[in-house]
């Protein structure tokens, strides 16, 4: 399977899940012929791998792999558009904010405008990570977003993506990654705006408050400087300015770069970190993602793919033709008395209806009896030979062979099939069929005593048989 390497891992699972969504609607999977191919591609027979490989082969056949790639490309495009919009929004937002301050940048005001919402949303995102949820809400949200990604099988791909992500608790991380990226772009826009504005315009800086005591601003400045200082960006030379009027050029430059560093440190960096965390979580979780193989759909698929048993490998083929015995026209003169044989009959199977005045009815079963009987028949050469067979026993080639050999020793051979027990009627039909195939005339196979008596009627003159009716025959 060519695309197996390409569509492994999460993408493969996603395709499989999508097929579950599609195929449970139009189930043509029974006619799918690739099962053996799938089995060959899955030497370890791991159920999930089987399910994925099976799905991949179906997806390839139906062009779903291409649909998925297109869908993915479209999703990336959408994300990029989103990021671009966010970048522009961040940029224009920051520019507008700086512009509105008419040359003197109120640092706490400006920072809270740039970082305030970002901090709040980051906090909400972190809190949301600790809230247990079935992912229904985020699922619906993402689904409504993904629904915009139309295209062939777009809806099914979205549904498959969402259900798979929900089951494997990937949902918050997907949403997280996307939102971090968008925020990252927005904050990058703000940084760019600050850079642009500070590069091409003259700004002074101030720390202003109406209600708060000055110590709060002092504390704020020191704490905001903490992280940049750790990372080697110093703000030691900076002093708090009231209205920004008496600032030296270096001080203004210092405040400008301090502000940019703060936005990078508290805006870009946390978002970048959060994005890396999301990405790590996604990669880790996606690696162990599982399909819900207990789902009836997968059970059905595994029923075909997972070999609990495979059959059909012929190790020793059938011969072209089998040597089988035929009844032939006996040759010679047969003038012996009529004879009867009970062939492979149980003692409980009575043949009272058949009374023999001269001679007896002989029992034949074992090898010795069979051979002795043939000798005896050859010696006596009876005119007619009646063989009683148990129609409940399945006929076989050995039986037929002996019957033909016995038949060759008598003028006429008749076969009586003992009345079958209940449920065994079918076997009588098989006897008839096989005897006829062996070229025994149909009328010689008898199933009722009346027929037997008729057949045994002497054709001309003497009879050694004396039939007596047993009443209700």
């Amino acid at each position: 399977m060519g695309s197996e390497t390409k569509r492994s891992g999460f993408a493969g699972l996603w395709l499989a899940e999508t097929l579950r969504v599609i195929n449970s609607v139009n189930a043509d999977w029974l006619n799918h012929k690739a099962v053996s191919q799938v089995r060959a591609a899955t030497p370890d027979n791991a159920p999930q791998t089987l399910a994925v490989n099976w799905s991949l082969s179906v997806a390839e056949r139906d062009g779903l792999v291409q649909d998925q790639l297109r869908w993915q490309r479209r999703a990336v495009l959408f994300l990029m558009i989103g990021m671009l919009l966010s970048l522009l929004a961040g940029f224009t937002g920051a520019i507008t904010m700086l512009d509105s301050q008419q040359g003197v940048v109120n640092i706490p005001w400006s920072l809270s405008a740039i970082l305030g919402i970002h901090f709040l949303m980051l906090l909400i995102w972190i809190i949301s990570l600790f809230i247990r949820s079935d992912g229904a809400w985020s699922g619906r949200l993402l689904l409504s977003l993904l629904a915009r990604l139309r295209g062939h099988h777009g809806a099914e791909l979205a549904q498959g993506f969402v259900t798979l992500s929900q089951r494997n608790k990937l949902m918050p991380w997907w949403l997280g990654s996307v939102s971090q990226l968008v925020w990252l772009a927005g904050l990058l826009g703000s940084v760019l705006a600050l850079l642009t504005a500070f590069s091409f315009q003259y700004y002074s800086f101030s720390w202003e408050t109406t209600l708060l005591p000055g110590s709060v601003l002092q504390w704020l400045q020191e704490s905001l400087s903490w992280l940049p200082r750790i990372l080697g960006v110093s703000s030691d030379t900076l002093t708090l300015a009231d209205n920004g009027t008496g600032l030296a050029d270096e001080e203004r430059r210092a405040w400008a770069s301090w502000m940019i560093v703060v936005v990078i440190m508290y805006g870009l960096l946390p978002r970048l970190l959060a994005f890396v965390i999301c990405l790590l979580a996604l990669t880790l979780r996606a690696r162990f993602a599982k399909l819900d193989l207990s789902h009836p759909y997968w059970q059905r698929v595994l029923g075909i793919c997972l070999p609990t048993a495979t059959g059909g490998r012929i190790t020793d083929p059938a011969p072209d033709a089998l040597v089988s015995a035929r009844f032939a026209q006996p040759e010679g003169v047969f003038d012996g008395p009529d004879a009867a044989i009970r062939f492979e009959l149980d003692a409980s199977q009575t043949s009272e209806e058949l009374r023999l005045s001269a001679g007896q009815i002989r029992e034949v079963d074992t090898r010795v009896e069979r051979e002795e009987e043939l000798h005896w028949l050859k010696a006596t050469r009876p005119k007619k030979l009646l063989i009683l067979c148990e129609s409940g026993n399945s006929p076989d080639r050995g039986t037929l062979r002996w019957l033909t050999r016995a038949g060759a020793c008598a003028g006429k051979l008749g076969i009586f099939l003992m009345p079958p027990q209940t449920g065994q009627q079918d076997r009588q039909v098989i006897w008839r069929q096989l005897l006829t195939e062996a070229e025994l005339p149909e009328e010689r196979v008898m199933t009722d005593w009346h027929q037997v008596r008729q057949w045994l009627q002497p054709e001309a003159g003497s009879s050694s048989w004396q039939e007596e009716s047993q009443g209700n025959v």
Partner: protein
Amino acid sequence: MSEPHKHQQRSDGQKTPLRLAIVGHTNTGKTSLMRTLTRDARFGEVADLPGTTRHVECAQLFVDGRVVLELFDTPGIEEPIELLALLDEQSRSGSREPGPQRIDRFLASSPASHQFEQEAKVLRQMRQCDAALFVIDARDNVLAKHRDELAVLNLCGIPLMPLLNFVADDVSHEAAWREAMAGLGLHAIIRFDTVVPPVDGERLLYGKMASLLDSHATELHALVESHADDARQRRSAALSQIAALLVRCAGLRRIVDVQSESDLESAAHTLNTLVRDWEQRCVSHLLSLYRFYPDELASSQLPLVNGRWQTDIFDPDTLQEMGIRVGGGAAAGAAAGLGVDVLLGGMTLGAAAATGALIGGGWQTFRHFGEQLKGQLTGAKQLRIDDNILLGLAARECALVIALERRGHAARTRTNVDGEQESKLSAAMQSTLPKLLRVARRHPEWAYTKEGWESPGFTAQAEQVAKEMADKMPDLNEPR
């Protein structure tokens, strides 16, 4: 001829699988046994005719994707008396010569490729196997040819386990066969009906095999466990399927602006058709889950014909047969023979408020009753699927699952499944199931959820319903 592959280690360190030949007189059900053991109704060819199988065919049984057992279906033996005579003739030094040597000499001789070609295939296969199952049609009399056959097979020098097939039949000569086997020193006899396999038949079969072939005991036990596991998983999947059907049907409803009786009837007819279609889908899913193929269902031992129920779920007689009384609250719909509930908004609103459904139901409930209230004001009526129909659906789908679990893959004839199982199930679920489904009643959107698009709420409700049914179903290993 090489020595049997016993205890050989493969290059990858894994033990070679146990090789088991299925042998026996012609037309005793060897291929049927293969079908049952491999759960593959398509294995080989089966007919009530001697000599249906003329080749040797191998099937492999897996545990965790590893082959643990190889079964070889062989042609039936048809001329045992003549064959034994030939073997005796070939063995000039008498019976003191070791059996396998005699068999090998026969296999190298010319009759082995002519008159006894089929028998030679069997013996050749047995010489390459670790053991053989001797399949006996218990309906046959014990005859000299059978004794000779056993004598020949015993010469192969591998353990021979008699397996009595068709013991469930009225004309079984089991006692006679047991006596005959005991006379030959074969006491570990396995009873196994391929058409009506006993519930724990496989466990017994492999268990007995394990006691005879202790070097393979671990694998055989693993096979039994893995099959039991599969059975549990299949049942749980089947019940989820049924639960989803019930949740859908329970949510189904239709608001009709009733002008005449025929409006009502046509709306009910639409609902009924939907439910019938869904039920049929569910049935075909169940069949494929249990690996019964639609093209083989024409003659299957199921209450279905061509994979379809023969009785309509909306037929009052069908319900009556399941012991479900039609009437009561559903009188309006049932009287019209529609099997749907006709509810006036106000009535339901009151009833729901009384049971507290309104309080716990949340937004969905209010929306639902809002529609009903509107219906009451405008004179519209709401149709939904009657509780009894839901109960009937649950009972008969569950009964089908039981039938599928118990049916051998070798069954070729149809027998009627009595309504007893359905009645038992419906009685057991009567008090709990409709109550459980009340949640689904409030979610008409679930009814039209496409398969595969179920919301978490839908799934949760279906799980509950499946659990309820699982509690009421007989245990997987419960004897019939």
